[in-house]
């Protein structure tokens, strides 16, 4: 099952992202949500989403840390990670590269852009098999 994980501590943003992606649910994609970094990490390990929209500024464990663990420590490199950062706060591109994120988007996000990216990744997922060993 193709899964997309939405991680943000703001319920409003989570719901908007869910709404943005709800068309995909009818196409058989499962949407998962997490409200902080720790929760996100355990969902990533257990549910293996192909795409994660990951807020950077979060309590407990921030997006950079989560991304770093996923990409560099446990080596789940085939998970596509989009970091979400608030407009106005400068995104540290160097850091983004370091932790292995695939892309970043600024909030307010553009719903069309988010949906297009999700479509692209889920379609790609359907055509390739998962290469990372199950942990």
């Amino acid at each position, binding site marked *: 099952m193709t899964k997309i994980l939405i991680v943000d501590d703001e319920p409003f943003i989570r719901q*908007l992202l869910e*709404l943005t992606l*709800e*068309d995909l*649910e*009818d196409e058989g994609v499962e949407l998962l949500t997490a409200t902080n970094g720790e929760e996100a990490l355990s969902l990533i390990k257990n549910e293996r989403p192909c795409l994660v929209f990951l807020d950077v500024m979060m309590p407990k464990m921030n997006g950079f840390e989560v991304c770093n663990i996923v990409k560099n420590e446990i080596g789940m490199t085939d998970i596509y990670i989009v970091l979400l950062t608030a407009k106005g706060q400068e995104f540290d591109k160097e850091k983004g590269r370091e932790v292995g994120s695939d892309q970043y988007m*600024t909030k*307010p996000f*553009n719903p069309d852009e988010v949906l297009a990216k999700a479509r692209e990744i889920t379609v790609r997922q359907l055509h390739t098999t998962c290469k990372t060993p199950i942990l």
Partner: protein
Amino acid sequence: MAKAVIKKLLAKPEVLTLVREICQAVRLPVCICDCEGTMLFGDPYGDQFFSRTISINSEDNVIGTVKGGEDCTIVASTLQYMVNAEFERTALGRETLEKYREISMLCDLGAKIGSCMDKKEVIKIITGEIRTMLTADIIAVLLCDDNDAIIEIISDDGSDGDLLITSLEPGELVENFLVTAAPEIVNDLTADSRCTGSPQIFSSMMCAPLKIQEKTVGYVCVGSLDKREYPARDLKLLTTLSDQTAVALEKALLYNRLKETFFAMVRTLAETIEKRDPYTGNHTKRVVDYSLAIAEGLELPEEYFLRLELAAALHDIGKLGVRDDVLLKNGPLTNEEFVQMKRHPTYGEEILKHIKHLKDVIPGVKFHHERCDGKGYPLGLKGDAIDITARIIAVADSFDAMTTDRPYRKALSLDVAFNELIKFSGTQFDSAVVKAFLSAQVQEKLGMRAHGRSNTDA
């Protein structure tokens, strides 16, 4: 979303607990299935006890079923209630998402036009954005002067902006907009008494003012050929967009004014040198013209032209640093005086380096007496090591010097001067630059061949 809603509800621990507790109260097995019959909750082997099947609906669609005994209606009603609430929540959420889409768009737009310093560019971006947000056949920005007269119409497709205005003029509608300076929707133009002009091409339109410091400088107009009912929210959006445009326009206007002032000062600076040098009458202007024509011949990029123009205008600015008795000397220079004179490109650099915005102009000034064979001054650079601006100015400058009268000799004819350029092409001059200068296209542009000018205009 519709199909998955029951599954999603049951995925929430609090909902699952609630359903479980109700089922225990009913004391009979109950199962809940999605619309495809997949069991989401309940005892898969309890089928034989099930006497009732109740469907869960969203609008007219069955999105799932509850199966159980007579009492299972209690579970079904609760679930139906939760499903309804969920749909209401999503409907609200969708509206919010629409608003959010607008916010995101406005943020992007702010960033895009905020850094844009060109009036036309600002308008192009804004009309393009309106095109994606609103339904319209024409989107145009009308700019007016201090007397509220329309001076410019810029439409997003660049074509029928005039159409909008001819369709309204000489009606009072637009004038009225300019006076009231309030955003307005006119959903039926034909019925509007202010439309006194020629037969209306557009049926419905909206207008929002562009205000810079309380002054209306123009309008953003949106027009539809077919009759439309533009809702108030469209006008609100248009107003938000026009406010943002006004801010960006003001910035662009201020920037352009600043730029104009700056160039005026540069030109004044260039003129000061002409005032000191008696032979050069209009020399600077001709060097600028020749240089630009050559750059066109070389097909250099548009954005390069300004730099070249400034460098050409300022190429001899360093002569300000040369003593009068050397600069104005009527007769051959001594060696020591010649050394003095040859310092003018370096002096030029010294004068200009204090002006940050002229940084790019310096190489053209500093190296305009370099030669391709390395025998020039001040550094003796060779070939491509010499900035292209300097190579162009060298040809333009020498050509004009040859074709104008000097105290010690008469002007050469154009043909003799052309031959000199050819003769020294590759040694003193860059051959590509000379070739461009002599090309028919450049010659025609400068009116040298086409008008058969046989001698100088100096």
